[in-house]
């Protein structure tokens, strides 16, 4: 009887040391990438931001994205395509005006995210249109370089 009991007890004991080791490694890895900032970046699949050494984090302003297919998105919603002339984009302009709040609540800043291989004229078109729609402070969102 005594022997049986002892054997049963041994089989129930699971060594948690190795599991704890893995969990701790995972925990440290996740803590390293933990972000407490409110600014969330959701780039379309296949879009890559240029790498820069700026240190200030982005704010929660209106975000205009130009993806790898030259599609313009506002807050993640597709609006229209880039015209590629470096001039005012009427479609984007109208959409920005639609999203404009009352003068007191109007935020002048706009986050601009452009696919890294696009020519400057695409960025110029976005900046020009945003400035005409009253968004005069541009925040170029870049991927932070890891030193």
């Amino acid at each position, binding site marked *: 009887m005594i022997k049986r009991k002892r054997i049963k007890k041994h089989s129930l004991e699971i060594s948690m040391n190795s599991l704890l080791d893995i969990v701790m490694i995972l925990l440290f890895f996740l803590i390293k990438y933990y972000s407490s900032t409110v600014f969330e970046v959701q780039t379309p699949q296949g879009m890559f931001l240029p790498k820069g050494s700026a240190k200030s984090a982005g704010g929660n302003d209106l975000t205009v994205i130009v993806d790898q297919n030259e599609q313009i998105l506002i807050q993640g919603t597709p609006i229209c395509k880039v015209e590629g002339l470096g001039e005012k984009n009427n479609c984007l302009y109208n959409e920005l005006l639609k999203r404009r709040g009352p003068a007191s609540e109007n935020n002048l800043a706009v986050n601009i995210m452009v696919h890294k291989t696009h020519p400057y004229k695409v960025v110029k078109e976005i*900046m020009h249109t945003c400035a005409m729609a009253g968004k005069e402070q541009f925040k170029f969102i*870049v*991927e932070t370089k890891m030193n």
Partner: protein
Amino acid sequence: MLRRKRKERDTNPNLIPVMDVTFLFIFFLLMSAQFIEVSQIVSDAPKIKTTNSTSDDKPLNLTLIIEKDLLIIQKGLDGILVKSLGRTKDFFELGELRSVLREIKKSSPEERTIIVRPGAEIPYDDVIHILDSVRDENAEGAKLFDLVVFET
């Protein structure tokens, strides 16, 4: 003998509640993890301002023109050429650009603005790469020219 057995029990702490908390913590961290760290480069739209002509202080009006194979640094209202830098095998000579800008900064330490005029076909990635050098920090942690204005 009985005392010994008690001692054995004490050496095995109950790890299950610890594991529960740890797993909850892992899920929380997974949800809030951001694997791509992003930052921002701030630029203002150019504005036209009329200044008092009686003032003796001439604006620096530092301008950086980015062309396909050339970086041109100009200053003053007349656009006096300071330096033009060619493209090497890989990219522009950014080290030299930084040293030229440092010299300008020494003569006008209060100036923070630089006007950037990239060519229409210059890749956005290259523009950001050059801006990094323009906004570069010195040994004291002060930036060269942190206010970038794009000439549109």
